[in-house]
């Protein structure tokens, strides 16, 4: 197994379900954000749970699944549009085992399970990313794009490059689980 990645214990807050959230991340409207468990939010990340759908009652703005990673300096904010003349932000749903690289901007509507997003990517508004897809580093995905399952997207604008092997699901699952176990606190 790869060597552990150490972080200082003082920097991260660990919840009962094993989520590790950096104190240096900016989290607006935390009551509207759901973390599935064993999810890591790195330092410098910005998560906007305050941009909620108008209307009465409790609104979930961003939900992340299990074993997710939000990289350093990432911005996650829900997409907006006007529908029937009313302006609104719409919820953003992210599945399990999703890794988002450093400094990416994500405004997707839905991201499936086992998705890998590289560094410095821009994911446009209302993008739908299906299961086991992969977005290469520095990709710019235009708004309203649908990225099919088991496909690799790269470039500006992001285009289909190749199909991924069927073993992707197991590979990504093992990788994300291993990353979580490698991410260990350093005492002192």
């Amino acid at each position, binding site marked *: 197994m790869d060597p552990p990645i150490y972080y200082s214990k003082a920097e991260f807050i660990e919840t009962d379900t094993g989520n590790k959230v950096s104190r240096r991340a*900016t989290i*607006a*409207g935390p009551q509207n954000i759901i973390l599935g468990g064993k999810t890591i939010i790195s330092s410098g990340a*910005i998560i*906007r*749970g*305050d*941009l*909620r759908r*108008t209307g009465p009652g409790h609104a979930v703005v961003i939900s992340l699944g299990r074993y997710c990673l939000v990289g350093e300096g990432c*911005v996650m*904010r829900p997409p*907006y*549009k*006007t529908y029937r003349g*009313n*302006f*609104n*932000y719409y919820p953003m749903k992210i599945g399990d085992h999703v890794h988002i690289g450093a400094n990416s*901007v994500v405004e997707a509507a839905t991201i499936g399970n086992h998705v890998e997003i590289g560094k410095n990517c*821009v994911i*446009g508004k209302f993008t739908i990313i299906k299961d086991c897809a992969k977005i290469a580093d520095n990709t*710019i995905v*235009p708004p309203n794009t649908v990225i099919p399952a088991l496909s690799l997207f790269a470039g*500006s*604008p992001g285009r289909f490059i190749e199909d991924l092997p069927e073993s992707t699901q197991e590979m990504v699952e093992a990788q994300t689980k291993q990353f979580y176990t490698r991410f260990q606190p350093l005492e002192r």
Partner: protein
Amino acid sequence: MAPIRDKFTIHSKAIVCQDVELKGDITIGSGTIVHPKATIFAIAGPIVIGSSCIIEEGAIIVNRRKEVMRIGDDNLFEIGCRIESPTVGDFNTISTRARVHHTVRIGSYCVVGAGCLLVPTEDEILDDYTVVYGPAAERRKWSGRGKVQEADLRRKHAEYLREMLPKFNRLRRGDGT
């Protein structure tokens, strides 16, 4: 160079979040929204921002020149963009991660696409309705179709943020109040 003197004039109807970095002489007009983690630096000359602009998180606005940097009304600066141009007109959209150098003056109704670099060595003016797009920063003219709808969306967006942001974020006030 003389040290930068901070002087913030924020209109009482503007929404400026607490977690915003401001430096130098900055004037923010009525109804303008500055999201948390945005940066506005008036290094040399002052910065004057008009009304109903939206400045999203991670956006950086810098004035390196001695003259006043004037930003018009109803502009949208998206996540992580960087603007140094001395003048910006009205109704422009600077998309996510775009960078505009201090040699470019922006007209009105322009769009700079996501991740575009606008860094010419000589001074130039971006005409009204110019759209800059793609990795090579190609240019086209916008016909102006859907202008009303676009303006409507911008107006509603600003209206929504003016209502919602104060509920979840601490706001910053100007020196006067």
